[in-house]
Each structure stands twice: as C-alpha cells, then as structure tokens.
C-alpha cells in the first residue's frame, strides 16, 4: 500500500516535471556556465597554488558542481509544494487514505531522480568536452551521494515549506542558509589547511556538506581509503536520516 502510493505520487510528479522539461535545463544553466567559464581558469591555479588538494582541476571542480546541482536544485522544491497547497492539491491528497509518508517520499524520489539526471549530464560534459578522468566506481559513488543529498535537501525543503506556508519567507530563508553553506563547503576553492586561515578551516569542518564534497573529491582521484570517505558517508547518512525524519513528521503532523 505504502510502496504503491509512493509510486503513484512519484509518477504524478514525474509526469508534471516532464511536461515542462525546460525547468530541468534551467537548473543546469549555472553548473554548465561554471564548467565552461570557470573550469579552464582552475587548471593553472591547481597546478601552481600550494595547499590545493591533489587531483586535476576537473577532479576538483566536477564533484563540486554536482554538489551545487543537488544543493540548489533540491532546496527549492518546496515551491512546488507551496503551489500545491495554494491550489488545494495537498488537502485533496491528504483526505485520501494514501500513506502520509508516501505523499512525501513520492515527491522526494522524483527530485532525487531529476538531480541524478542533471548530474549525469554534467559528468558526460566534463568527460567529453573537458579533461575529467574518474573510475566507474567513483561515478557510481557520486551518483549515490547526489541522490542521498537530494533526498536530504528536498525533505528539508518540503518540511520548511509546510511549516512556513509562505511564498515570500521561504526563498528568503533558503538564500540566507544556502549561501554560507555553499561558500563554507569549499565548492569552488577547496578550504584546506594550506589555503585557509585556521578559523575558516575549522568553521568549514562544521559544515556537513564540506564532508560530502570531500568524499566526492577523494573518490574522483581514486582515493577510496581515506578517513574522508568514512566521515563523509556517516555525515551524509545522518543528514539524510534526520531530514527524512523531519519531513515525515511535518507531513504527519496535523494541519500540515
């Protein structure tokens, strides 16, 4: 029953997404621009700057762009829910016997799949147009990570949207949270001990997404042994679990 409901909601949302595929393209605009207009600059910098982590520019940038897709693509999905609240769709679905968990998970899985599809496009571009090299294992791991991150962020986004029920406050809060998270995760310039002042480095370690970027970079340069992999996976699993818990609770809470 629960799986069937999840599938039905997932399918509904997928059909709606595919009806306006332009949005998937618009979500890809930013990372593609970075790939073309920022990536080439990074090649020299990587080679000549002490303190940069090992690996080529593309092994450093591509994982970061994929994280960026997840971060921005999935954080704003709550807007869709706000629209469904406004049009009464949420209420309509909530009076059916459908599982409350399914009403959330169906949406979240659609978001995860959409993010993974965008990540695949960026990876293909980085491989074919630019000079990215990474193992199949690294690619698979990246896609799993991106999927989990998307689940995490989408759940939070839906929970936040349901709590706020306000189409103005929602983006304001998101932007306030996302900018520091983005900068402190060292997405464009890695925040290493060699590059950053101690306080900034320490601060960045508190950002869970830093650890997620770290596993991706480690796996892209073929380093599957480091602590980064363990720490990053634990952080990611913990975040996903917490986010799902919050999302489900908010969906089940009365008057949500």
């Amino acid at each position, binding site marked *: *029953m629960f799986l*069937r*409901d999840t599938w*039905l909601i997932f399918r*509904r949302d997928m*059909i*709606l997404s595919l*009806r*306006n595929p332009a949005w998937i393209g618009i979500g890809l605009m930013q990372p593609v621009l970075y790939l073309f207009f920022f990536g080439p600059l990074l090649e020299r910098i990587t080679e000549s700057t002490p303190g940069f982590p090992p690996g080529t520019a593309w092994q450093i940038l591509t994982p970061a762009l994929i994280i960026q897709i997840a971060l921005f693509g999935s954080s704003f999905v709550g807007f869709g829910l706000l629209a*469904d609240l406004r*049009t*009464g*769709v949420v*209420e*309509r*679905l*909530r*009076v*059916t*016997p*459908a599982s409350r968990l399914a009403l959330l998970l169906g949406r979240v899985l659609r978001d995860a799949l959409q993010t993974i599809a965008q990540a695949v496009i960026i990876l293909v571009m980085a491989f074919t147009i630019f000079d990215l090299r990474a193992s199949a294992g690294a690619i698979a791991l990246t896609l799993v990570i991106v999927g989990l991150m998307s689940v995490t962020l989408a759940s939070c986004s839906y929970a936040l949207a349901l709590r706020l029920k306000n189409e103005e406050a929602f983006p304001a809060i998101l932007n306030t949270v996302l900018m520091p998270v983005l900068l402190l995760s060292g997405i464009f310039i890695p925040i290493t001990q060699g590059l950053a002042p101690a306080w900034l480095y320490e601060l960045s370690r508190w950002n869970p997404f830093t650890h997620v970027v770290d596993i991706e970079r480690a796996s892209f340069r073929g380093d599957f042994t480091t602590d980064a992999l363990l720490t990053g996976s634990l952080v990611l699993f913990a975040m996903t679990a917490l986010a799902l818990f919050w999302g489900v609770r908010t969906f089940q809470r*009365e*008057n949500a």
Partner: protein
Amino acid sequence: MITARGLARTFTARGRSVEAVRGVDLDVAAGELVGFLGPNGAGKTTTLRMLTTLIRPTAGTATVAGHDLAGDPLGVRRGIGYVAQGAGATPNAKVGEEMELQGRLYGLGKAEARRRGVELGERLDLSGLSDRLVKTLSGGQRRRLDIALGLVHDPKLVFLDEPTAALDPQSRANLWEHIRALRDTHGTTVFLTTHYLDEADALCDRILVIDHGRIVAEGTPAALKAQVSGDLVAVSVVADDVPRAAEIARRVPQATEVSTEGDAVRFRVPRGDQALAELLRGLDAAGIATTSLQVHSPTLDDVFLTLTGRSLRDADQTEAEHVPA
C-alpha cells in the same frame, strides 16, 4: 452518517488563541442534504476540516461514516469524499490523469480507476475533456472536476466546502442540479457549507446555522423561517373597512405585529398559507372585499438577523478580518 458531540478547535498563533469552533453538536442521517450556513469566519470550514480528518479537534468526539474520528481516521477517509473550498486539481495535470490518480489512491486498479473516471466524467458533463490540462477548463468545469475527484470511490458521504463560490450564476444553477442528483439519484449523503442564503434555501433539506463557532439554529429552511420571524401577510381593503379588517387580522391564530398603513393591513404569522384561509373566511363573513393579498416568506437573512442581531452580509464584512488562517 455524522454524529458529533462538543467538537471544538482552538487555534494558537503568535501567543494569541482563537476559538474557531466552540463545541458543535450535530447529527446527519443517511441520505440527508444538509447545509452549514454562516458568515465567513464563523467556523464552517474548521468544522468541516475536523470532520474530514484534516485537523484534529481540541475537544469533542465524532463518528463519521461509521468510523470514530479520533480512533480510525483512515476508516473515515475511506468512507468520505471531500471537495475543498477553491480547488483541488493540479493546473498542469490532465483531467484524465487526475481522475486516475485519485481513484488509484483510493485503492482502485488502473483499469477500474479509468472506467470510474469516464463514468464520472459522463455524470458531471466532463466527457471528452480527459486529455485537457486542468488549467484550460472553465470555472464551472473545474469545479465539477473537483467534485468528480471527491466521488471516485463512490463515498456514502460527501463534504462540499463552498461548492459554488466564485461561479457565475449559470454555472451555479448547473452545479446545484448535480448536487441534487448526487442525493436524489445516487443516495449520497451531502454535507455542504455555504454563505449564500439562496443556495442553502434551494438545495438543503436541513440547515445548521453557525455563528462565532456555535450552532445557533437548525431546521428545514421553511421551519427556520417560520420559527424565527414568520411570513408577512399584507391585505388591502377599501379604506373604510381598514379598522374592521385589522380587528379580524388580530383574531387570526398566532398573528403578531398587526399594523395598518393606508388601505393595507399587515401582520406576521408562522405559516402565511394557513393563516390566509382563516383571514379570508373572517373578511368574507364580515362582508369586506379584498383588493389585493400578498404573502412574503422571510429570507434566511431575516433568520440570521433575528438570531444574531446582525445581517449575514454585515457579519461577513466585519468578521473577515479576524478569520483564523
């Protein structure tokens, strides 16, 4: 079909609590078409949302469609249809997709959900629209789709929240037909909220009047009107006969507010049609000829005015400001 006792709901927002519903008792029998009438903010929608499991009551109990509201919300959901105020369909979805999804969420198989969609489409004049996007439908079509979505699982009890709000007069009249058919042809129990007097009057077997979160009156539209203010009877006679005619009017059982003005005598009685025979016999016996005779039924607005001291329309305007979200 519905039994509620002491149903109440208090909203708390920014440290202030608002008692939206303060202890509602109601009973709706199977096959009834009941209207819940009151100004905006009176507690209609809140009561409806409680009865449909969307929000939990802060106090009170209810049995809806044979299931306990607090103990078995899933059972309640399976047994009822709910059509919310405003809309319920996704603008960018196709009509057919929405019907199928809704049916399947109620546990129907794919083929069954489609078949049901077609059947309801025919019943609610939506045939041939299955491939249209919801946002391209007219207001009336969209509302009928919302209702169709609430009927996919053939519920024995349907809640309609302000079903005809924001519709043009023609679409309203058309929708009334469909709502009547729901009960008359399909035996569905219908519980609807409205703040249109004519709607309650035209559709409902029985009306519950709610104000400030409490039910202040209940009865058939005719009984409510009779109970509260009575019909106004105006009879015109030759000027000389006015005092004698007024005397006869006073003797009509239960006649009140007898007054004269020019050649007319006016008075109120609970049932104007019954009083008329009495009056005419009296006038006839006294040899008084009538030049005109009129009976005005009171409107539900009169009822509301008598009950609360305010007209429904005024209440709407003053209360809209502190409606709990």
